[in-house]
């Protein structure tokens, strides 16, 4: 079965540019999570969606926004990019937001801001 698909895999942007990261969850998964992993850091939760509604919000900057669409895919929009936004961005999906279900992660999008 296909896993969580993220695109693009790599992205290079200049400061102050915008970027859009896409996430396609596993089939029948209705919950999507976004995490940011800086170099040598543990993944930090940004935001999650359940049934197209935001369900939790973590340390997501105001310059970032995200949404989940009717087909359950999600997009993370990042504006006014800063050097510190360079990181690996993971999307994960699960069936329902119940705490007992494990989240399956995509391979990540490596964003480099220059």
């Amino acid at each position, binding site marked *: 079965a296909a896993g969580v698909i993220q695109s693009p895999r790599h992205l290079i942007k200049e400061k102050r540019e915008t970027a859009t990261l896409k996430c396609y969850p596993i089939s029948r998964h209705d919950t999507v999570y976004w995490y940011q992993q800086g170099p040598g*850091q543990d993944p930090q939760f940004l935001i999650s969606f359940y049934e197209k509604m935001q369900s939790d919000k973590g340390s997501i900057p105001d310059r970032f926004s995200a949404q989940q669409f009717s087909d359950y895919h999600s997009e993370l929009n990042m504006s006014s990019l800063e050097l510190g936004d360079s990181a690996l961005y993971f999307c994960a999906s699960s069936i329902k937001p119940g705490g007992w279900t494990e989240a399956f992660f995509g391979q990540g999008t490596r964003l480099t801001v220059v």
Partner: protein
Amino acid sequence: AQSVAQPEDQVNVAEGNPLTVKCTYSVSGNPYLFWYVQYPNRGLQFLLKYITGDNLVKGSYGFEAEFNKSQTSFHLKKPSALVSDSALYFCAVRDTIYAGNMLTFGGGTRLMVKP
């Protein structure tokens, strides 16, 4: 608030020897606990979870973890390490009291298995 601590940045073990990667947690209610493994330039792969029931949980690739409520620990173990087990391991927790869905990760432990 929920938090996870992985006290060791790196664990070195010889191939064929048992391995332990430590994890302790802090939650308000009862924990849901997870272990993930990350290979270079790859996403996080789910290994195993503890929700309820038997304190010894068995997962993928021969890994297991033991939930110890009194010590608030969830150490990852494997009886015989393989060189291919070398990777970055993350412990994660969700709090059953907290209604949210976010996983809180520990800082990660790099496992190095030498031939």
